[in-house]
């Protein structure tokens, strides 16, 4: 069951990565033109991604919370016995960053509420970029931890 939930957790994270990156790029580097792939990527209606991104973030966090005990009992003790303290540290960092992102979600929703307020454009881009960073960091750390035995030849 834990493996199944871990896979769902990963798939939700992949969807969130794509969706939030799209929104962050459109917020930080907007484009009015749709000429070419990059300009099209930048010119999406970023506000439409907001509710889906919030739902995916909360889903990802809840699933992570459900499978966390398995990590705490089975994986972390193993990492500590293998003296892979930096791996434990990166997971701790991921845990804290993701939680801070949870507290950002109401503000994220407010900043993207339609009609968009022009005065809040910088705060909107900064908040979206921060959430995007949290999700990318967490995804990379999670991915490395899943593969830690192979990566460290254990």
């Amino acid at each position, binding site marked *: 069951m834990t493996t199944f939930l871990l896979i769902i957790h990963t798939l939700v994270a992949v969807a969130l990565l794509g969706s939030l990156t799209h929104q962050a790029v459109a917020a930080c580097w907007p484009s009015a033109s749709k000429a070419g792939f990059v300009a099209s990527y930048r010119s999406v209606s970023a506000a439409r991604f907001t509710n889906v991104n919030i739902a995916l973030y909360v889903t990802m966090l809840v699933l992570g919370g459900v499978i966390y*005990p398995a990590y*705490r009992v089975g994986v972390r003790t193993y990492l500590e016995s293998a003296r892979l303290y930096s791996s*434990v540290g990166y997971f*701790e960092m991921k845990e804290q960053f993701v939680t*801070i992102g949870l*507290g*950002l979600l109401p*503000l994220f929703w*407010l900043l993207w509420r339609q009609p968009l307020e022009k005065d809040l454009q910088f705060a909107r881009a900064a*908040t979206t970029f921060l959430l995007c960073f949290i999700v990318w960091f967490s995804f990379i750390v999670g991915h490395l931890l899943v593969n830690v035995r192979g990566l460290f030849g254990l």
Partner: protein
Amino acid sequence: MKIERAFPLFAAAFAVIYVIAVEYNLALVTYHPKLKEWGFLTEQPKAGGPAMYWYGWILTATLGAGVVSLAALPILPRLKSFVWIGWVIPLLVMASFLYFLRTFFLH
């Protein structure tokens, strides 16, 4: 009085209360994963297994930030003038975690 005016303050208060909760271990609940047992407030590990405080820290931060936001709602200035605290304070708290977690990387 619109509650969403307090969202920047909520984000800032959540981050600050969360880092305090983590550093001083102020968890509203504790989970003992080996026993599959919940406890109220911060409890010591039981039966040779670890104790998990993360759920409790989230509850502490959510409740604390909610109370701070509601209490400050009547005196909050216009949204645009202080919206920056909603992302700057969490960013600073994230940076502070790099310091607090440094011991993991100094072995």
